[in-house]
């Protein structure tokens, strides 16, 4: 429960007590945020528009990770692999059977959820490092299945597969601008859903399992069932992210979903602060902005003799690794913690406490 509310704000009705959005400032910030996030990106030019679409998609994927790693405490190294399942299911369903995107997306999401549950099955007996191994195996096995027979017959193997443009009542989403609106709407809806899951019974169970699985079991929580639900939700989110990714990138190929991507998603969640939705979003935006900076400064670095070109290529990874290490040492609770400190300062201002 958020206890640091401004002076004089009390809950007088039960529905106020369970409201997500409590104060006028909340409302103003949220509505302003939603409006700005929808209105501004289309006017930023092609490059930043693609950046915004990808950010929306990555936020959805990292929110999936938020369930299983942030809330339930199980490190997952397979999020990009699950995203690949979603993307390929969408693309194959649309191109082979010709069904509408709006049917393919939920089927892909559900199917990815099932796949995630299958790879979460070892959580019946193991946890921690061992479970991280299972998700690592998931990542590699999924990508291998996509690129090798028998599945490569449909998925196109290493060459990838082309996704037809989705249509809605005769309108085809060919341009990036139109696809941006779809992704941003999905993103906000899924953020809302994720925020709510954390407040429901399953969400509270996840947190109990994360904090102490033995204590949770003693309290009557079925840990195995709970972890599988977390894996399912994470898979559904990854599936939707993949589904949104396929029509955006049009030609999807296995290298879009490599092991490095899974690690990046985990790093984004850690940098943001693993236990909160705001953290997940902030982490994604922060790391992706840093990446953009490295792209901008790449040509400058390239002039360094001998190592310049390598350095420019690998600058993103160097910055990412350093940022993750720095955050783990100096602010393990992530950007979200700083934001919480700022919020309580703002609410209590001018008093210090």
């Amino acid at each position, binding site marked *: 429960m958020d206890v640091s509310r401004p002076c004089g704000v009390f809950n007088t009705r039960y529905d106020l007590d369970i409201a997500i959005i409590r104060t006028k400032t909340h409302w103003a910030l949220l509505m302003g945020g939603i409006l700005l996030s929808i209105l501004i990106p289309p006017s930023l030019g092609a490059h930043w528009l693609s950046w915004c679409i990808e950010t929306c998609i990555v936020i959805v994927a990292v929110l999936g990770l938020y369930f299983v790693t942030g809330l339930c*405490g199980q*490190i997952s*190294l397979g999020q990009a692999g699950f995203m690949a399942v979603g993307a390929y299911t969408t693309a194959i369903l649309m191109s082979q059977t010709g069904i509408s995107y709006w049917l393919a997306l939920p089927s892909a999401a559900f199917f990815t959820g099932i796949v995630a549950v299958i*790879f979460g*099955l*070892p959580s019946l*007996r*193991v946890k*921690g*490092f*061992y479970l*991280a*191994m*299972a998700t*690592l*195996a998931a990542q*590699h*096995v999924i990508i*291998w299945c996509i*690129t*090798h*027979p028998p599945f*490569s017959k449909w998925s196109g193997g290493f060459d990838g597969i082309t996704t037809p443009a989705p249509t809605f009542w005769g309108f085809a989403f060919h341009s990036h601008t139109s696809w941006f609106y779809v992704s941003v709407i999905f993103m906000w809806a899924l953020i809302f859903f994720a925020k709510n899951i954390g407040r429901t019974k399953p969400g509270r169970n996840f947190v109990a399992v994360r904090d102490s699985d*033995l*204590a949770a079991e*003693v309290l009557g929580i079925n840990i195995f069932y709970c972890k599988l639900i977390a894996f399912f939700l994470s898979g559904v989110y990854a599936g939707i992210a993949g589904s949104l990714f396929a029509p955006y990138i049009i030609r999807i190929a296995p290298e879009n979903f490599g092991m*490095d991507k899974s*690690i990046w998603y*985990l*790093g984004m969640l*850690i940098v943001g602060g693993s236990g909160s939705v705001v953290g997940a979003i902030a982490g994604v935006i922060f790391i992706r902005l840093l990446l953009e900076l490295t792209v901008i400064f790449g040509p400058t670095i390239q002039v360094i003799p001998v*190592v310049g070109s*390598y*350095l420019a*290529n*690998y*600058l*993103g*990874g*160097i910055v*990412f*690794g*350093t940022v*993750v*290490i720095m955050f*783990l*040492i100096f602010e*393990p609770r992530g950007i979200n913690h700083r934001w919480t400190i700022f919020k309580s300062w703002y609410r209590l201002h001018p008093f210090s406490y």
Partner: protein
Amino acid sequence: MAFFLQMMLSGMMLGGVYSLVALGFVIIYKSTGVLNFAQGQLLAIGALILWSFLVPLGLPLWAGGLSAVLCAGILGFVTERLTIRPMTGQPLMAVMVMTIGLAALFDSLIPPIFGGVERAYPSVFPGGGLQIWLLSISYEYLCSFIVALAMVGFFLYFFHRTRKGIIMRAVADGHDTARSCGIKVGTIFSWVWVIASMSAMIGGFLLGSIENVSPALSAIAMRVFPVIILGGLDSIPGCIVAGPIVGALEMLAVGYGDPIMEGGAGEVMPYIIILVTLIFRPFGIFGQEHIERI
């Protein structure tokens, strides 16, 4: 039949090197309770440092080898001091994420420092091979296998018979208990990383002389994960037994799976072994099952 046996044999020889690499993971896990995801990168850096001593500087093998072992030790020490020590008291999962971050950092630092091209060591092991009946083993594999076995034997002795090794096992058992017995846990952590980094360097040398010396060696180390899972994360004998098993299965997958699967069966086999082990015998052949109580 000869093909089957040949694949088995070369797989088991490769598996010996896997055992050695797995040893690095097990040493760190046994003593600090952390699975070090950056072990593969330490291995690649070690192999590349040795190459830099041997080829551009032209040192003889013994001098280059000693300097490389020293450098690897320093690298392990510095890594532990800068990144793992500040995490003392944090949950183990956070430390594991730290090693993942380290792996990402090293992966991006290796190509700018050493260059991304593939190289080869000057031939250390004799060429040619041994011919037994229908089977042949190259001397490279045989020597690597022997060196790996010797190293594993040394560490087995180290952990069970020497003072430092027993102290390390005490630290693994419980940091607070070890501290109350007068053991400096921090110093032991440093030692553990130094030793693990050195053994990674030797593994890198062996893998590098079998395959090529390149930054891609770090990915080969990922294939060692099934060895530690199958053998048990905290078991040195497990490493010795599981290494050849995993190596043989991998080579059999390459031999029989590749023609059907259009290649790549050897790459996915390790992960299938991981999944099967985790489902049916999660703590491995020799791993200690943790029974928890409140």
